[in-house]
């Protein structure tokens, strides 16, 4: 057992840090650190900067444009990006559809889509959930029926993150209704510009437009857009679930947010003393910091078992990671107290100074935090709710 990073890993960290210092645009960093909303061009801009460096897809095999980094180095990369406050590289292309295309797609699909994903030439979104198929995803009803060299797709997807920006959607669709529900599902790639595709916003409790409903009305999709074999889509979706999921714990991001919380609690005062010196509040922060230390050690432990893959242990990382993220936002709101109430969406979009706070720096820090807290209730619901994750732990690990 050796808990130290190797000399090579430390040198790697220095390289990454130097890159981020010179290449991360300050205006993007500011938005991320202050919890402001990111626009489409913010995500694309950062993705293209990283892609130009050749680092946009560290998880990929080198022949497709991966970096050849070890699991620990990939962890360092994520850790440093989070520490600096980069916009995320959205997972839908790089981490979700790409591994499925690599493993099960045709040569034409690999040649066409992978480079475009790598360089963010296409914005991808995920068409999994439906109004009647949430945790019970396999009961999805969107159909794809063959018609010559096309499928005709009809149905509705929901909770589709940032579909309003998307060029492409990867969908689970039903191609056989006569068999067991898991066995009649196929994995289809659909161009969002195809006639019959309609995107309708869902406004969330923080009044942000982050997710959508996507409707398919007799949408004609070429047979060439089927990934792998017809009716094997459930297998491919499950393959994706076990793929590179240590990032799901969001440890790096939570470390940055813990530092933010502490700064905030030093700026906020209670009876003339910094709030972080209040024993009751300090105890809450310290407890959370210890939870985060434990999660980071667990992530490193899982990551260092390279080759074995996280498998069902990813469920544990997801549960703890999401709970810690939520607790951080909860403590931020507790730290600012009544300052959590004023709400100014135009400020959050970066369009205007805050209407209540003006240019008060402390209030600027505080202004987005209530929205952030409310928004982050999603983390224990999406990506397989935490209850579903516990089902996976009991079945796959404990064998109950």
């Amino acid at each position, binding site marked *: *057992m*050796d*808990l*130290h*990073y*190797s000399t090579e*890993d430390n040198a790697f960290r220095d390289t990454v840090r130097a890159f981020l210092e010179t290449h991360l645009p300050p205006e993007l960093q500011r938005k991320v650190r202050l919890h402001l909303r990111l626009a489409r061009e913010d995500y694309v801009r950062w993705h293209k900067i990283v892609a130009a460096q050749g680092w946009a897809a560290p998880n990929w095999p080198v022949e497709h444009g991966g970096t050849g980094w070890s699991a*620990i180095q990939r962890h360092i990369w994520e850790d440093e990006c989070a520490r600096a406050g980069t916009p995320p590289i959205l997972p839908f292309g790089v981490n979700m559809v790409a591994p499925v295309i690599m493993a099960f797609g045709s040569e034409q699909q690999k040649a066409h889509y992978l480079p475009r994903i790598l360089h963010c030439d296409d914005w991808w979104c995920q068409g999994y959930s439906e109004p009647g198929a949430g945790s019970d995803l396999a009961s999805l009803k969107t159909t794809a029926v063959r018609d010559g060299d096309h499928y005709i797709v009809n149905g509705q997807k929901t909770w589709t993150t940032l579909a309003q920006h998307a060029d492409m959607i990867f969908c689970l669709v039903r191609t056989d209704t006569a068999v067991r529900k898991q066995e009649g599902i196929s994995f289809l790639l659909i161009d969002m510009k195809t006639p019959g595709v309609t995107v309708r916003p869902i406004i969330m409790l923080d009044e942000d437009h982050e997710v959508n409903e996507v409707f398919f009305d007799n949408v004609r999709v070429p047979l060439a857009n089927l990934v792998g074999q017809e009716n094997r889509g459930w297998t491919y979706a499950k393959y994706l679930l076990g793929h590179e999921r240590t990032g799901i714990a969001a440890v790096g991001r939570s470390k940055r947010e813990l*530092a933010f919380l*502490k*700064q905030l609690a*030093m700026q906020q005062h209670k009876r003339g003393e910094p709030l*972080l*010196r209040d*024993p009751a509040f*300090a*105890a809450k922060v*310290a*407890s959370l*910091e*210890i*939870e985060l*230390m*434990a*999660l980071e*050690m*667990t992530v*490193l*432990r899982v990551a*260092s*078992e390279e080759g074995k893959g996280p498998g069902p*242990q990813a469920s*544990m990382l997801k*549960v*703890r990671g999401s709970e810690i993220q939520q607790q951080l936002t909860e403590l931020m709101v507790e730290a600012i107290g009544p300052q959590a109430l004023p709400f100014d969406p135009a400020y959050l979009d970066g369009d205007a100074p805050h209407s209540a706070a003006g240019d008060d720096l402390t209030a600027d820090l505080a202004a987005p935090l209530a929205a952030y807290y409310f928004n982050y209730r999603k983390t224990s619901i999406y990506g397989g709710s935490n*209850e579903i*994750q*516990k*089902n996976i*732990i*009991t079945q796959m*690990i*404990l*064998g*109950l």
Partner: protein
Amino acid sequence: MDFTINQDQQQLADALRRWLDKEYSFEQRRAIIHTGSGISQQAWAGLVELGLTALPLPGEAGGFDGTAADMLPVMQELGRALLVEPYFATIWGARLLALGGAHQAQLQQVADGSLRLACALGERQARHDLHDIATTAVASGEGFVLDGEKTVVLHGAQAGSLIVSARSSGNQLDLDGVSLFLVPADAPGVMLRDCRTIDGQRAATVTLVQVVLGSEALIGTVGKGWELLDAALDYGAALLCAEAVGAMDALLAATLEYLKTRQQFGAPIGKFQALQHRMADMFIHLEQARSMAMLAAGKADSTDVAERRRAVSAAKVRVSQAATFVGQQAVQLHGGMGVTDELPAAHYFKRLSMIALTLGDAQHHLERFIAQPGFLPVQGA
């Protein structure tokens, strides 16, 4: 970065597990607890033969210079077997002696198994603060005279020598003025009252009345004992974290087995989701505790004192919380059988609960964690 145990560590852990399975069954342990001394000479001889008393001791004392990381798999196995022998007390005491830098003869005796130690550090009013010391050490000629009372001295009555903390100067709560002494258990003026502990171990109340010691009894420098005590506290806490993880491993396995066999409503009770999710929560707690026990073992020997304290206190907080949660939930999942003396579950629960209270509980270590540099942000950063 490497979280695996090496081949030597694995071999020792395997040998220890085989020995414990054969020689230290639950029923054998139960019999030992109810003997007069509460320990087994035969078991002690077995531990010595396996090399466990020599493992963490310095090479110059005939030991193997084992690190805290080497001790991690050993303590996990001992936790799994719910060992009640005075092993932890002896190794913890040996750590203090080794930190003091003298007493090679006694360390050699520990390594070869002929001397058992106990740490008489706590006092009735001190709770978890080991610097709260009312026992006095008054200089007299070349040596010292000790007076006072030490409480809950783990395996005090089973030890050949005691390590006693006493105040040689300053006020009761000062960090300065703490001195440490090696006191033979049969020294005139030492009185021991032995008692069982609720988790099957032994603890003694040690009364010291005009105990006259020579200068050779002093461990480290006079008045400067706190630094050693603090370092030994971290070492001991790291060992207890590892023991707790071993006990939790065994308790989780026993509970899982119970859920798969106990039938109600025509099905194994493990088929019910309310119980499944409780097991998942226990599993998550255990894995977080395992990670933190590793962190503590990796940092307990660190020469960076702030880093050592921060890591070990964080670990003791997290492991104590997990120990309490896993223990309570395992009993609940065992139903009525969980609160009987008959099944191991209750015995694991008692041991885990007492580990959570030993060498600082979660609240104590949370406060210590907050007091370390690194908790408050650097101003202006």
